[in-house]
C-alpha cells in the first residue's frame, strides 16, 4: 500500500456507516468510532458525508494545543493526542476547521482518526477505506484515482484567511480546483484582493 493516498468523495457516500462500524473494531479504541458520517440535511435530501481526519500539513489542532500533545509524524499522519500530555481542554476540538477531534471526557483525552496507523504501517489499507461499499473513502495510488475517477482530488482548503493543505484529498467535480467555504471568495469585489490569485495558487 506504499504510495497510496487517502481520498474522500462525499458524492459517492450512501450513508451506510460501514466505515464507522469498522473503525470501532480497532484494538486501540474498542467499540468507539474515530470517524463519522453526517446527513447534510435529512429532511430535504438523502445526501450524506463521511468525515475522516484530513491530516493537515500544518495541523491547526496541534498549533492551538497548550500541552503540545498533538504530533504530526514524518509520514504526514497527525496522531491522536499523547495521553501523558493531553489535558482535555478541547482547544483542538474548537479549532479544527473540519470538526474532527473529539475529547473523551471519561478518558480525559482527545482521540481522533490516525489513518489506521497500525494497519498502514504494516502495508494494509485503513479499515474504513477498505470496507467502504461505495468507495467514497478510498486508499489507492493517486495515479489510479487520476485514471479511474471522474471527480478530481483537491487538498487545499480556504477557510476565510486561513489556507489549509491536507494529506487527505476531497474529490470534487472536474474544474473545481479548490474548496472554499467562504462566500467572500466567490464575490466579484474580492477578485483583486484574493480571489483569482488564491484560486491559481491552489492548483497542484
Amino acid at each position: 500500500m506504499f504510495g497510496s493516498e487517502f481520498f474522500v468523495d462525499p458524492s459517492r457516500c450512501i450513508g451506510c456507516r460501514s466505515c464507522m462500524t469498522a473503525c470501532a473494531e480497532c484494538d486501540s479504541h474498542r467499540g468507539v468510532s474515530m470517524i463519522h458520517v453526517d446527513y447534510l440535511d435529512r429532511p430535504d435530501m438523502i445526501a450524506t458525508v463521511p468525515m475522516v481526519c484530513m491530516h493537515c500539513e500544518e495541523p491547526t489542532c496541534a498549533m492551538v494545543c497548550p500541552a503540545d500533545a498533538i504530533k504530526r509524524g514524518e509520514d504526514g499522519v497527525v496522531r491522536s493526542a499523547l495521553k501523558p500530555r493531553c489535558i482535555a481542554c478541547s482547544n483542538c476540538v474548537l479549532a479544527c476547521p473540519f470538526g474532527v477531534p473529539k475529547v473523551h471526557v471519561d478518558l480525559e483525552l482527545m482521540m481522533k482518526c490516525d489513518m489506521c496507523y497500525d494497519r498502514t504501517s504494516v502495508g494494509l489499507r485503513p479499515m474504513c477505506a477498505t470496507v467502504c461499499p461505495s468507495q467514497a473513502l478510498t486508499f489507492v495510488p493517486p495515479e489510479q484515482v487520476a485514471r479511474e475517477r471522474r471527480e478530481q482530488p483537491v487538498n487545499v482548503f480556504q477557510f476565510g484567511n486561513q489556507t489549509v493543505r491536507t494529506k487527505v484529498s476531497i474529490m470534487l467535480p472536474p474544474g473545481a480546483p479548490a474548496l472554499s467555504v467562504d462566500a467572500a471568495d466567490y464575490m466579484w469585489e474580492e477578485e483583486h484582493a484574493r480571489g483569482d490569485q488564491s484560486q491559481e495558487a491552489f492548483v497542484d
Partner: protein
Amino acid sequence: MAKRPDAAAPILERYGPHGNYVPPGGWDRAARGDYRLVKTHCCFCGQQCGIQLKVQENQVVGFEPWEDFPYNRGMLCPKGVKRYLQGPHPDRLLRSLERTPEGFQEISYEEALRIATEKLTAIREKYGPDAIAIYGGASMVTEKAYLLGKFARVAVGTRNIDYNGRLCMVSAGTAYKLALGVDRAPNPMSDVPETEVLLVLGANVAECAPIATSYIWRMRDNGGRLIVVDPRMTPISRNADLYLPVRPGTDLALLLGMLHVIVREGLVDTEYLKSHTTGWEAVRESAAKWDPETAARVCGVPPDNIVKAALMFGRAKKAMAIHARGIEHHSKGVENCLAVINLCLATGNMGAPGRGCFMITGQGNGQGGREHGQKCDQLPGARSITDPEARRHIAGVWGIPEESLPGPGLTAQEIMNAIHAGEIKALFSMCFNPLVSLPDARHTREALEKLEFFGVIDFFLSETAQHADLVFAGSTQEEDEGVIASSEGRVQKINKAVDPPGEARSDAKIVTDLAHRLGKGQHFPYTSTREIFEELRVASRGGIADYYGITWERVEKEYGVFWPCPSLDHPGTLRLFEDGRFYHGDGKAHMQVTEYRQSGDPPSSDFPIYLTTGRVVSQFLSGTQTRRIGPLVDLYPEPRCEIHPRLAGQLGIADGDWVKVTTRRNSVTVQAQVVRTIRPDTVFIPYHWPGPRSANNLTHRTLDPRSKIPEFKVSACRVEKTQPPADLSGIRKAETGIAGAVPAVEGRL
C-alpha cells in the same frame, strides 16, 4: 395449540433479543493476536461478500477484510462488519427446548428427536403426510436446502414444502423462467461498469446490496448514466441522471410507456428480435395504447421524463436494467419483471458485456436456495416437479419409486393459509420467521396457534419459534459449511469457522438424524455435508442449474464457479445467452405480453395513502440476527414512518410525532420522519421488527397469481397523529429488549 407461553418476560430475559456489543472474551482477548483467519462469506444478503473471520478458542471474535475476493475486494456493509457478534451471543440456543405449561424447558437432543418423530408420525398417520408442512429458508447453504427438500418428500412424504424465498425472488425467477427459460441473473455485476445506461427499478441498492453501489459509481466514472425508478429517493438517487418517482404499484405502466416510446422512435433492434425471440408482435401491440401521457396518468411520472428514460435506454449502445423487490413484491410482480425483460430484448440488450438485466437476490443463498428442491414446484437442478423425466431422474438418484415422489405443493403463504383453515396440522420450520416476515401478521399468529405440532430448528428463539412446541438448537452460518450461489449465480463456499456450542447441532445433522428416526435412514446415509454436495452434483446433472462440474475444491481455487457447469473441465458460465441461445427448447426468448391491473389493496376514501415497506441498511430481513447485534440496532433502533412534509402538513404531523398508520387489517404506532425524499402520496415503514410495530401487521395477503409472492410493496392506509404508546419503555423492552451496554460515543447519525 402452538400458543406462545403466557409468561413472556422470562422468555425475553433468557432468549432476548439482547444487544451484543463486545467480542466474546472481551476486547483484550480479541486484541491478543493469536487468532486464525477463516476465509468465508457473509451470512446476510445475496451479494455474499468475501470476509475473513477471526477465530479464537472456538469462537468468532472479529473480522478482517478479504481483499482478494473479486466480488467485493474487502468491501463490507455494517452488517458484515458486525456479524461476528451473533455467534457467541447470550441469547444463543445451547440446548433443545420443549414447551410446557410452565414455559420452555431444556431437553436433551435425543429427547427432542424422540418427540419430533412421535408427533410427526402421529399426525401423518391421523391426517396423511400432506397435513405436515415444511418451511425452509434461503439463508441456508445449498446442501441444507437440498437435504430439506429430500427430507420433506422422502422422509415425511409431504408435497407441502416451501421456503422464505417465496417472499423474495419468486417473481423475478418466474419471469426469467417464462421468458428466458432459466432462473438466474444473466449478467455478472462486473458488467455494470461497462454499460452506458443503467436503469435501476425498485432496488434500494445502497441499503440492500451496498457493495453493488461501487459498481454503479464505476459506471458513472466511465461516463455511464443512471436512471432510478423508486417512490423514494434512495441513497443512490443522489447521483441519478434521471429520477422517476413512480407511484407504488404502477411500475408496469412506466415500463409499457417506455416500450411504447422505443417502438415509436424506431429504437427497436428488429434483427435481434427476429433471430432470437418469439412473441414480439403481441408485446408490441400491447404497448401501443401506453403513450407517455397515458402511462404518466397511471404512474405519476412526467410524460417528458418517460420519453427521456426511453430515449436514454433505447439509444444507448449498451444498456442494462437492475431490479429487486420494489417491482417484484406485487400482485403483478411477474409482469413487472417480464416488462423489464421485454425492454432489454426489444433493444437487443442481452447476452453481452454491459448489456442485459440483473435481479438482485435478497438472501445469502437466495439464488442457490431455490435451485435444488425446497421450492414447492422444483426438484434439484431447477427441474420442474411435474416433468416426468425429471421425476424419474431424481427418484433414481434418491433410490425411491417415482410414484412415491409427491407432486407440487403449496407455496409459503398458501401453507400459512391452509394452517389457518385447519387443513395443515403440523409445521416443521428452519430458517424462517414468518410471524415477522409474512404479510398480515395477525393472520399468521392465529394460524400458528392452531397448529397441533410446531417444530423449529433455529439458533435464536425467533418470534415465530416462541410459538413452537419443540425447538432444536441448530447452527449459525459460521458453524456450518457448504456452498451458496450469489446474486450473480456464482457458486461460493461457506467455510466452517467454529463448532456449534453446547448441545447445539449442525442443522444438516438434525435433519439427517430425524430422517433416520422416521425410518428412512437408508436414503440419508450422510456423515458429512460434503457427501450431500456430491449427491447434489449428481442430482443436478443435466438440469438447468447443472452443478455437476463444480467441486468444493474448484470453488475455492477459482473464487467461485458460475453455474451452469456441466463437467469438470467446463469453465462455468459467467454470462448467459452469449451465443444468442436461450434456455427454451427452440433456443429463443419467449417474450410475454404484460397486462396492467390494479394492486390488491387499492386506495379509497377511508385509506387514501399508499404504504410501502422495505429495509434499512443496518438490519436484515426479520431481524432475528441483526436485532441482536447492538451496534447495528443503535444505527436505526426503531421503525419510523417516512412521510413527505406536504402530506405531514395536511395531517398536522411534525417530525418525531407519533403516528398511527392504519390499513384494512390492522394499525401500528411509530414515530414520523418527515422527509422530502418520498412521494407525498406515499408513506414508508421498514419491516424488520416484530409485535405492535411490525409493518407486516399492515400488509395484505394478495399474491401474484403465478409467483405467489405477497404484495408487500403497496397497501392502502391512513395516517393520523396520535399519543405516544402508554408504556413506551415497556414496548421497547418487550420487543427489542436491548440490554447491552450503550456504546461510549454517541452516534452522529
